[in-house]
């Protein structure tokens, strides 16, 4: 018996040792049923031969791996499980380091099994850098986390960024019914076909640029990546990535499609662990690819970059399903609440004033030119409200109008726009008519001291310890107005600004505020390690909105993710994907996620050249109409037009109400009843064939919209140019 037991024990030990050698990293896990996605069934493997993490959907049998392992693959970039970007301390140059060449091929990848996954150490010996990454099955998906605190550095190289699993979300070129999904603007699809025009690439900073980054400034009214998600669809399967809230603002999305030299199209997130400033070297045209150098921060962020991947399969894996999956994710994880506001109204923004060059007795100075008085608004609302009920937003009614001045515009409604009595009369009018009167406060841009905020001591700091200074951009000559600089308020002072704002809300009995600049212009502050690489922006916005909500005040905010999930209404919601050449199709992913839950307001439609077309785009994507008006215009405002284009373009020349009223009323007459029909409904699906889009809503209505100027015959009959029909 003893002998038998001993033999048995030996065999067990031997087998287990063999197992350790040959297959120690081959494990499978069942999914955690407590996750929001209970029907998922995934397994996670580590293939030691190519150092690849393999995620398999056990239902469909489809696998997604961090390294592409096909016979025909010879390109090292496809064999890399992770790439890094490093900064050379000696010459400040940056280098992109391929994980295969510097790590896998050198056999410098070590894998350690943990409870529900693996920790893989990628050692880039030539650069003295080790990056540990945790891969684990959690909440129905694969959660990958860069363990920042365990990153080691030695030598002259500093780690700048980590491109995590660049090949995980990849699709073979020319695959049928396949595409990459990127949430730029309203949402974009990238075709994966190889074409004679070669590869298409896209790179976008998630949630827009870091405004506290020192760089040569250009007009960038391009659509940004509004949501921290991405995806790849291949036939009946797709992989959908959700970047963790904490690291969303430090990440970029990179996508490459149809590259014949690679054979695969991929999309992945790149996480920066250090912030940087860009300095140009004189006599070089840096913005045309000339010489420049980038100075990185000394310390790394303390936030662990993290992205979770979810498998969608069984045919329900397109962008519509990705959107509904993401909406469910936001709701079930408690990140998003439904807004109580009416979701069928339109929004009118009134611009109070703007600083213009002026002269008094021949002495030049800047003065605030009044564009709209309270009495103008009262008259305009009286006129336009006959066409339907609108919410009203007052923008730039502080001391310096929409131009930066004191923090929060001095936290007052300046008397240059009318008396307090006039404002109260306006407020009563709005209250009586069920119109929400929202006042916008710019609490991050400022250039004058006041209200306890100093323009010397309370400025946010850039990665290379410079005061975060911005200049208005001349959109024509692409130059900055150096004599009109303004600063970003230190992130540590934002809370104080919010409290100041609440005081004025209390005093003026405001029941709604708008925080466009605070929620749109996300920025770092290297005064405090908590705010490196825009860390904790989400928490700060969340905290601010909670404080406001507790006072019973509703919040209008930018359509950026952090504010989008928390605010009561979203403004400047993009209607398309920014029309990058790299994209093949524009989809209303953003609207599919939020419509029915929040009122979504478009950009001011009357400032665009094509009101009719844009209004139709708004309806077909479920985005409420929005207009901006001013009450007065003088040609001297043409100077001001050029200056204030960094938070939305204020084409003042096109905003005079009396010039717009007829066109806008016609649009309202045509569209408002349609918006009422889809008020609380969610978007189920959106398809576009040729010039006709088809939007299916959860209340059963299907909207057919003809986006061309010629009539088109559809299932629901002939639709006139730039018109629509419900089915």
């Amino acid at each position, binding site marked *: 018996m003893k002998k038998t037991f001993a033999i048995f024990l030996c065999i067990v030990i031997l087998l287990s040792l063999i197992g350790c050698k040959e297959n120690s990293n081959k494990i499978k896990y069942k999914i955690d049923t407590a996750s929001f996605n209970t029907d998922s069934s995934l397994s996670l493997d580590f293939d030691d031969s190519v150092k690849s993490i393999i995620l398999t959907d056990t239902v469909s049998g489809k696998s997604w791996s961090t390294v592409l392992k096909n016979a025909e693959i010879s390109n090292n970039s496809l064999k890399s499980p992770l790439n890094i970007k490093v900064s050379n301390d000696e010459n400040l140059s940056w280098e992109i380091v*391929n994980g295969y060449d510097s790590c896998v091929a050198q056999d410098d990848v070590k894998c350690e099994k943990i409870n529900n996954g693996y920790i893989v150490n990628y050692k880039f010996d030539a650069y003295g850098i080790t990056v540990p990454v945790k891969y684990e099955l959690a909440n129905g998906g694969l959660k990958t986390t860069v363990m920042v605190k365990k990153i080691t550095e030695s030598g002259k190289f500093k780690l700048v960024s980590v491109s995590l699993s660049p090949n995980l979300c990849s699709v073979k070129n020319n695959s049928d019914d396949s595409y990459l999904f990127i949430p730029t603007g309203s949402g974009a699809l990238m075709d994966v076909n190889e074409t004679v025009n070669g590869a298409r690439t896209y790179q976008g900073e998630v949630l827009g640029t870091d405004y506290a980054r020192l760089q040569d400034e250009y007009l*960038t009214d391009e659509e940004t990546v509004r949501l921290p998600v991405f995806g790849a669809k291949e036939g009946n399967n797709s992989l959908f990535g959700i970047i963790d809230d904490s690291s969303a603002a430090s990440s970029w999305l990179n996508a490459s499609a149809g590259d014949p030299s690679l054979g695969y199209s991929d999309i992945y997130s790149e996480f920066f662990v250090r912030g940087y400033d860009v300095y140009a070297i004189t006599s070089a045209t840096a913005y045309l690819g000339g010489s420049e150098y980038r100075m990185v921060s000394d310390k790394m962020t303390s936030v662990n970059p993290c992205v979770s991947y979810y498998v969608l399969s069984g045919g329900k894996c397109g962008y519509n399903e990705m959107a509904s999956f993401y909406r469910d994710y936001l709701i079930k994880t408690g990140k998003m609440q439904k807004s109580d506001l009416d979701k069928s109204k339109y929004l009118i923004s009134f611009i109070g004033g703007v600083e213009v*060059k002026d002269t008094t007795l021949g002495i030049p100075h800047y003065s605030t030119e009044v564009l709209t008085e309270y009495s103008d608004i009262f008259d305009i609302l009286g006129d336009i409200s006959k066409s339907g009920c609108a919410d009203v937003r007052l923008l730039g009614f502080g001391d310096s109008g929409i131009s930066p001045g004191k923090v929060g515009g001095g936290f007052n409604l300046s008397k240059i726009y009318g008396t307090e009595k006039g404002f109260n009369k306006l407020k009563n009018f709005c209250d009586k008519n069920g119109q929400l009167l929202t006042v916008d406060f710019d609490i991050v841009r400022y250039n004058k001291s006041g209200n306890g905020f100093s323009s010397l001591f309370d400025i946010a700091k850039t990665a290379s310890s410079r005061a975060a200074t911005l200049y208005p951009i001349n*959109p024509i000559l*692409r130059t900055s107005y150096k004599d009109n600089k303004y600063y970003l308020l230190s992130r540590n002072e934002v809370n104080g600004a919010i409290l100041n704002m609440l005081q004025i809300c209390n005093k003026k009995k405001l029941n709604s505020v708008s925080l466009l600049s605070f929620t749109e212009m996300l920025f770092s502050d290297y005064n405090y390690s908590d705010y490196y690489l825009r860390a904790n922006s989400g928490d700060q916005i969340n905290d601010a909105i909670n404080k406001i909500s507790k006072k019973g005040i509703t919040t209008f905010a930018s359509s950026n993710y952090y504010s989008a999930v928390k605010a009561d209404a979203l403004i400047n919601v993009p209607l398309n994907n920014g029309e990058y050449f790299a994209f093949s199709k524009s989809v209303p992913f953003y609207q599919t996620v939020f419509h029915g839950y929040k009122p979504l307001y478009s950009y001011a439609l009357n400032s665009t050249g094509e009101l009719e077309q844009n209004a139709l785009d708004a309806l077909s994507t479920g985005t409420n109409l929005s207009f901006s008006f001013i009450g007065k215009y003088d040609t001297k405002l043409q100077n001001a*037009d050029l200056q204030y284009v960094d938070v939305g373009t204020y*084409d003042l020349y096109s905003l005079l109400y009396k010039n717009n009223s007829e066109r806008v009323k016609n649009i309202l007459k045509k569209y408002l009843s349609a918006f009422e029909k889809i008020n609380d409904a969610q978007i189920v699906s959106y398809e576009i064939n040729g010039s006709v889009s088809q939007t299916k809503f959860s209340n059963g209505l299907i909207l057919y919209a003809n986006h061309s100027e010629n009539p088109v015959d559809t299932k629901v009959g002939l639709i006139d140019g730039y018109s629509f029909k419900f089915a």
Partner: protein
Amino acid sequence: MKKNKKMKFLFTVMLLVSILLSSVSVSAVSFTHRDNVDGSSSTVLSGETYMAKTTVSAVDYNLEESFSDMSDMCVFGDKIYVLCAKKSFIAVINKDYTFDRVIEPVDGDGYKVKFKGAQGIYVEDDSIYVCDTNHEKIIILDTKGLLKEEIKCPKSSLIPKDFVYQPMRIVKDNDGYMYVLSLGCFYGLMTFSPENEFMGFYGANQVKSTVLDTFSYMFELLTSNDTKKSASEKKLPYSFVDVSLDSDGFITACTGKTEDWNNSSGQIRKLSPTGVNILKKKNLDGSTSSADSYNFLENTVVTKFGSARMQSFVSIECDGNFIYALDRTYGVIYIYDTDCNLVGTFGGGIGKGIRLGQFKDPVSVVVNGDDVLVADAKNENITVFSKTNYGKLLLNAQNLQLSGKYEEALPKWEEVLSYDSGCQIAYRGLALDYYNNKDYSKTMQYAKQGKDYSTYDLAYQVVLKKAVADNFVWIVIISVLIIGFVVFAVIKLKSKHIKNDKLSTLFSFAIHPFNSVSDIKYKKKGSLLYSSVIVCLFFLAKALEATASGFLFTKQDIENYNLFYTIIQTFGLVALWTVSNWLVCTLFSGKGTVKEVYICTSYALMPIVIFTFVKILFSYFLPLSSLGLVNGFYIAVLLYSLFLICVSIVTVHEYSFGKFILTSIVTVLGMILIVFVIFIMIILLQQFWNLLYSVLMEIFY
């Protein structure tokens, strides 16, 4: 392994490039030029005239080859011909942007005709002309692509020996004459008869030279030697880069890169049959000036990191009353009308076009009905721009205006303003239309907003005539009363001798300058107080002239007016002259004191002061036609004041006239030296302040 390394490198480059691309991409911005009253122009945002609708490329047509090295397009009939030079084919697209066919030219033996590097295409009824630039010939094909003929460099005594024949653009006029533009050719366009015989060069640009250049040339001539001659550079005229035929049959050409440090002027030329530029710029006062001196691009050259970014036109297309010119640097398409008004702009990208409506390397612009097409060689696509509602209205209104159909244009201008409240040409259009309708008050209102002096003046003259006719009796009575009062006052003053000697000297200074200056010098009858009052009045008059003159006489935008400059021009000038003159004349044995120079100089300004106040008053009544007379008076008054100064200096310092001239020249040089020293001081102080500020910021951040 080698391949892998190459791929890695490519991947790295691709990523780095994409980083740059995404961070610097710029949007398309529509802008126009606003004429200022001082004769300058500002660039201001304006409504969007065209909007990018789509792009077409080889991918859309499932072609096997991309539109690589696309260099030119030509619209003929209902087809668009796209020259793809790299692979030697011509893509033919229908007007509705559906695909028609690919023409792969072959010769009579069936061999493929290659034209890699070709830069121009022109199509007529039965022929396609391809400028095979690199192979120094023009290829003529039939519509199926069969080679018909080749035009090589003609043999002619008119062609210089060192001439390099590299045809890059072709256009034919209504009589069948062919104009060929050769790459880098500064002799102008090569003209060929309908029988393809070379006839000569036509319409060359001219070398622009300044007075300084002339002096420099003279100096070179005087100091020239063989070594210098061999090292010297010849200044040649800039060459055209594209030509187009307008609706009147005139050749319109555009010049590419011009000066090294500014965008220069005269980039677009409309050539008369004799080759003279007949394009004129209409000025605010209704006069016209040659477009040779007009900058069709931006006045400000953008300098980034010490390197100037020069704009340069690369392609031009005429369409009715409008000229579309493509700037390769910014990727902006400028729309000019035949009066050189910038109607609008569209496009953009400054070489980083990654979005619809922007370009990486725009090379050609053509008009296809209501659409404008722009070929982008690097993006290998053609962007289709369609007119916006605003664009349709604006171009239509201006077209009607230029055709003299004012009645039809009027409502369209009003609608244009409802889209763009700052549109200057709309205000001007309305002004002219209302003048045509005899609504003079509205004419003046809109002309004022559009800064249109000529139309304002026309309406004002009618209003003035009517006012004079209606109130003639009253005007005569008031005029007689005023003249009577002035005559009475003068007589009274003369009969009643002024007891105050200093005041008396002041009043007699302009009439009896020699006596008055002698009194000031030898009898001490000059007053510091009075002279200071005159300088103050001089300052006040100049300040009011700039800010409070009547509309027709205003030469300064009030919002841009800076009192500091007037202070410099008045107080500063007097002080500078006084100090400099005293310093210089002391060295030249002058007998005058600072006080005497100051008093005499101030007194000499009296005629200018009085004239300026009178001019301000009359500027509210006089029409623009009297401007010449007013300016003539001003010059006379100015000369008289200079004469008074001359008398003053001669007398005060006891100089001869010759010595006065000499000391005056040295005085002016001294003034320049003083200004130079002051500027140096200011710059040093500024730098010291910047240093302090930087130290402060370093301490805090």
